[in-house]
């Protein structure tokens, strides 16, 4: 039986020079090094995987407790525990490449030199398709968010990565910047091919009985559906205020959530915290997007980017 309008929808998108078979990207820090969910998530629905943030050397990360659930969200202060770029390339990358997915390496540096060095190493690596530049982690002592809040620093980090590689460069922006569109314009001048946003929002919670912070790091990053309306607004501002393609994220749990980001201007979206909640989110979101396109007679999903209409929903 064929439903009315049950034609094939073109679900592919182009962003930062990458042709993704679906607009759904696994968000860095929520999907390990890419193959951890292979038994329970439907990888056919995943357009690309952004792996856990990488430094040159392995990092132990923050002491526990590292996570705390909040209303419709979670706080985390992992502190970028990771294996270092060399072990990633030798041990982790082959496993995720074997899954046939587009791999985006997410990098973080504690200095501009480290960003540049990581960029050069990845440029020589086989099987990495793009570099997402983490200039927005709230949980590390140096680098991270301090680059992302200052347009000049963000541009310098982007520039040094740009100089090291021919791969597409995608700075991941901090919601803590006072003018994210200004940061996006500066990283565009510095050679970025796209931007991704938002990273987590600095936040905290306190146990009133013990009068102690919930996280050992005291402050963590808030993610999950709780941040989504903030993220949608920020994607809208950046998409309007710069010429760069935008990869949107923040609490996406369904096709409807993903559509909000697309309509305000995202070319692709990332799914993060909801991986923890429901590995079935990939299939549900993908199917829901295709069904929406059929219902609205949209032949190619990419046509929805920035397709929000004027006026109000009423």
């Amino acid at each position: 039986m064929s439903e009315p309008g049950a034609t094939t929808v073109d679900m592919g998108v182009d962003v930062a020079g990458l042709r993704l078979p679906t607009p759904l990207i696994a968000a860095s820090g929520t999907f390990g090094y890419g193959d951890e969910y292979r038994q329970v998530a439907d990888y056919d629905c995943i357009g690309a995987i952004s792996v856990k943030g990488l430094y040159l050397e392995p990092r132990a990360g923050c002491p526990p407790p590292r996570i705390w659930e909040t209303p419709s969200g979670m706080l985390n202060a992992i502190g970028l525990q990771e294996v270092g770029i060399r072990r990633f390339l030798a041990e982790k990358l082959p496993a995720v490449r074997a899954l046939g997915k587009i791999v985006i390496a997410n990098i973080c540096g504690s200095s501009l030199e480290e960003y540049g060095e990581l960029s050069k190493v990845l440029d020589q690596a086989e099987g990495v398709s793009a570099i997402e530049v983490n200039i927005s982690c709230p949980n590390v002592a140096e680098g991270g968010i301090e680059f992302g809040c200052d347009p000049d620093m963000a541009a310098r980090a982007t520039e040094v990565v740009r100089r090291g590689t021919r791969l597409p460069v995608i700075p991941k922006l901090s919601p803590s910047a006072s003018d994210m569109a200004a940061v996006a314009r500066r990283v565009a001048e510095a050679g970025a091919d796209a931007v991704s946003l938002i990273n987590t929002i600095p936040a905290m919670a306190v146990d009133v009985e013990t009068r102690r912070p919930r996280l050992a790091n005291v402050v963590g990053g808030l993610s999950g559906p709780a941040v989504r309306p903030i993220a949608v607004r920020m994607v809208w501002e950046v998409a309007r205020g710069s010429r760069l393609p935008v990869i949107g994220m923040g609490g996406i749990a369904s096709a409807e959530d993903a559509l909000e980001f697309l309509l305000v201007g995202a070319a692709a979206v990332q799914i993060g915290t909801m991986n923890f909640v429901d590995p079935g989110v990939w299939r549900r979101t993908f199917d829901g997007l295709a069904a929406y396109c059929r219902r609205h007679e949209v032949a190619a999903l990419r046509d929805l980017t920035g397709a929000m209409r004027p006026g109000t929903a009423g």
Partner: protein
Amino acid sequence: MTLSEAVGGPGPPRADRGATLVARDQLSPDAQLLRFESEAPLRVLPGQFTMVRVDGGGLLRRPYSFCDLPDDGAFTLLVKEVGVGTRALMNLPVGGEVSSLGPLGTTFDLPPPDRTPVIVAGGVGIAPFVLFCRRLAESGRRGIVLLGGRRRPDLYLWDTFERFGMDVRVASEDGSAGHHGFVTALLDAALADTVRPVLYSCGPTGMLLKVAELATAAGVPHQVSIERRMGCGMGCCLGCVVWARPPSGGPEEYLRSCTEGPVFDAATIAWDRDPHPL
């Protein structure tokens, strides 16, 4: 065949299964044994756990040890009220649905035939040992089970362990059952009664630490199940870490209690590294 079916890892296959609550046994005022039936038969090894999602139980899934697999497709969970997640499960009506992601994590290894298991469990820490003792009993073997709790009602499933033929010895902090005090006070005698013991423990951190000290002093191998707050259970959120030596050797690092654990060789854990882990 989808890609995700094509690439299985070692150990029993994982899945996110729908499961229906079919029976509830109120073991004490604040603890329940919940029996679920799932759509497909489960293969689970003792010590493994499941991440459960239930309506009204918060955003993130919550980890529970598989307590027992009484029949094909059925599993039980031992749940004690600690917060919104456990409360939602304990208020779920019979016939209600959850989703159960698992089985996850490392396992308690049955001891070699020439060694005798000595289990030390506190409160809901007994959960993984029901399946463990079922497997022991199926191979015609016995062990010593030391159960501890605050009061007599907290010595959950005492009779189940006896039915499996285990030598059950109990302690309660208020003296209402067995030894008056901590369960670890029973350990010296249990080890003295045992030829070539192997220790297994699960429960409050203070208890685990004491068992680990005694095990080290007596030179007895010791597997311990560590509970930490978890976000995903799949090794990706890195929320549940324990500072320990990796099984493959090398220096201590933060290992994931969902992936390198929850069952660890107790001798590899740096117990003093993070004094307030929960």
